């Protein structure tokens, strides 16, 4: 490759390299870079529909006085603060149990727990909506085995509606995360566990003192991608609540609010773009966090 730096051949290499990457770069520039800059510009404008005027920081000020935005923001934060740790821990426990070669039927268990990943977000949301209906299978089963005395209002009570959203996302994504951990566990030397076992280290301590520290990079990676996914939550809430984010905005997410601002209410592109930049900032913060954590690790 040293040749590439010299004269004629170098230019030849360059031209070819650019030809190979040009279509992808062009498409990404046109459909990602240009729109993201445009919506930044839009977030400083205000007006109805396409009639936009420059409005300075008025949209940003409006954010703090908009109870629906505050609601959507706190809901979104609640989802990932509560859901991501539960799911990651569950996936880790499942992965370490299924990593045991002596476990009979582990191939079946692995496939079963991974299976939710093949469903579309819309399809499983629709299924969950039916299963958690007032007289539905979940309430009737819980009543039959005596856990609850009366049906839980999953879809009509602000608290339980949030619980339902969290249960649904956990069902869909736990197996996905588990697969990452199982793959990473292939690289852990089995003899570490043997030595610990012979030394009388109990299973739970082996999990917290060997598995978790060794899997830290993958755990960090999956935590970040899960968090970014949860910040952008849309399909599930839209389909569990007929697009409303109800009851009374209890499940509304930022993405759903942007959708409503743009396509359901009187369109206000400027303000909707400002809300969308809240998501951009949140995601960017998390990405930085991952970057610094990864650098810390490499040191």
């Amino acid at each position, binding site marked *: 490759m040293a040749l590439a730096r010299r004269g004629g051949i170098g230019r030849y290499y360059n031209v070819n390299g650019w030809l190979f990457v040009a*279509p992808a770069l062009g498409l990404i520039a046109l459909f990602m870079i240009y729109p993201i800059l445009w919506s930044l510009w*839009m977030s400083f404008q205000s007006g109805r529909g396409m009639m936009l005027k420059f409005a300075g920081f008025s949209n940003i000020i409006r954010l703090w006085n908009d109870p629906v935005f505050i609601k959507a923001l706190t809901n979104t934060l609640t989802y990932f603060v509560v859901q991501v740790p539960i799911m990651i821990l569950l996936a880790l426990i499942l992965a370490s149990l299924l990593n045991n070669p002596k476990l009979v039927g582990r191939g079946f268990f692995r496939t079963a*727990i991974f299976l939710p990943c093949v469903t579309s977000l819309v399809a499983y949301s629709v299924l969950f*909506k039916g299963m958690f209906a007032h007289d539905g299978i979940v309430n009737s089963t819980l009543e039959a085995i005596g856990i609850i005395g009366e049906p839980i209002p999953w879809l009509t009570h602000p608290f339980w509606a949030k619980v339902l959203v969290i249960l649904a996302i956990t*069902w869909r994504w736990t197996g996905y995360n588990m697969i990452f951990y199982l*793959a990473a566990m292939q690289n852990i030397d089995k003899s570490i566990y043997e030595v610990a076992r012979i030394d009388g280290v109990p299973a739970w301590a082996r999990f917290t003192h060997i598995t978790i520290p060794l899997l830290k990079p993958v755990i960090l*990676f999956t935590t970040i991608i899960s968090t970014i996914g949860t910040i952008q939550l849309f399909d599930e809430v839209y389909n569990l609540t007929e697009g409303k984010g109800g009851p009374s905005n209890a499940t509304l997410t930022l993405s759903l609010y942007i959708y409503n601002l743009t396509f359901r209410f009187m369109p206000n592109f400027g303000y909707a773009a400002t809300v969308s930049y809240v998501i951009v900032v949140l995601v960017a913060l998390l990405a930085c966090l991952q970057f610094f954590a990864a650098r810390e690790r490499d040191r």
Partner: protein
Amino acid sequence: MNNGTTRIAGTIVTYGFVGLMAFLSIFPFLWMLLGATNSSIDIIKGRMMPGSALATNIATFFTQVNAPLVFWNSAKIAILATVLTLAVSSLAGYGFEVFRSRHRDRIYSALLLTMMIPFAALMIPLFIMMGKAGLINTHFAVVLPTIGSAFVVFYFRQTTKAFPSELRDAAKVDGLKEWQIFLYIYVPVMRSTYAAAFIIVFMTAWNNYLWPLIVLQSNETKTITLVISSLASAYYPDYGVVMVGTILATLPTLAVFFFMQRQFVQGMLGSVK
């Protein structure tokens, strides 16, 4: 003795826990299959037995929904998006890995950053752009913004590192041009990478919801995902019909998963290699 008891208790807890989780994971699928055979009222009341309404549900589904058209729409979008994404991304992944140029690394880093852009921040400008181009309500508008994918480019570049450079050198000695090396040597050698990427991109396109929801407004252009969503959000949804719809929508991805499990998982893991 005591140790033995603990171990037996541990085994019971392990199997109990893993078994319960596996059951909970499969249960909604079971419920979906049984649901398709029951009437809407029975489904909502939580009946878990095979019923006799399967034929009625299927018949109602096919009268309410123009199923062949809807599936054709979904398939067209998914296949077009997948083929174009794979072509564009594998060219770029190969290009980034094989050719050196002055700003390559900087541009590649910038490209990776675009993975972080949330779709919510793109949808308004994209909607306006598609409106100006007169593409609202066309499948082209659904496919276009999804072709350039930093994630898939990244996946191809990572796997290209395993592409033996001796093959390239030998081909050059034989006088093949760069595009010939790519087409006749790289593509066949990397077919398992293509398979894994195909699965992931196809699934994403087949299941895509928010963007098609915005762009596809007439019934003639709607995909199966949009149709299920609107069936289920009716004031009194007919759950038997909804179940038939979800089964049909899930079948293609389920089939791909069972027949190509290895590539499926490889594609999912692509990002950590």
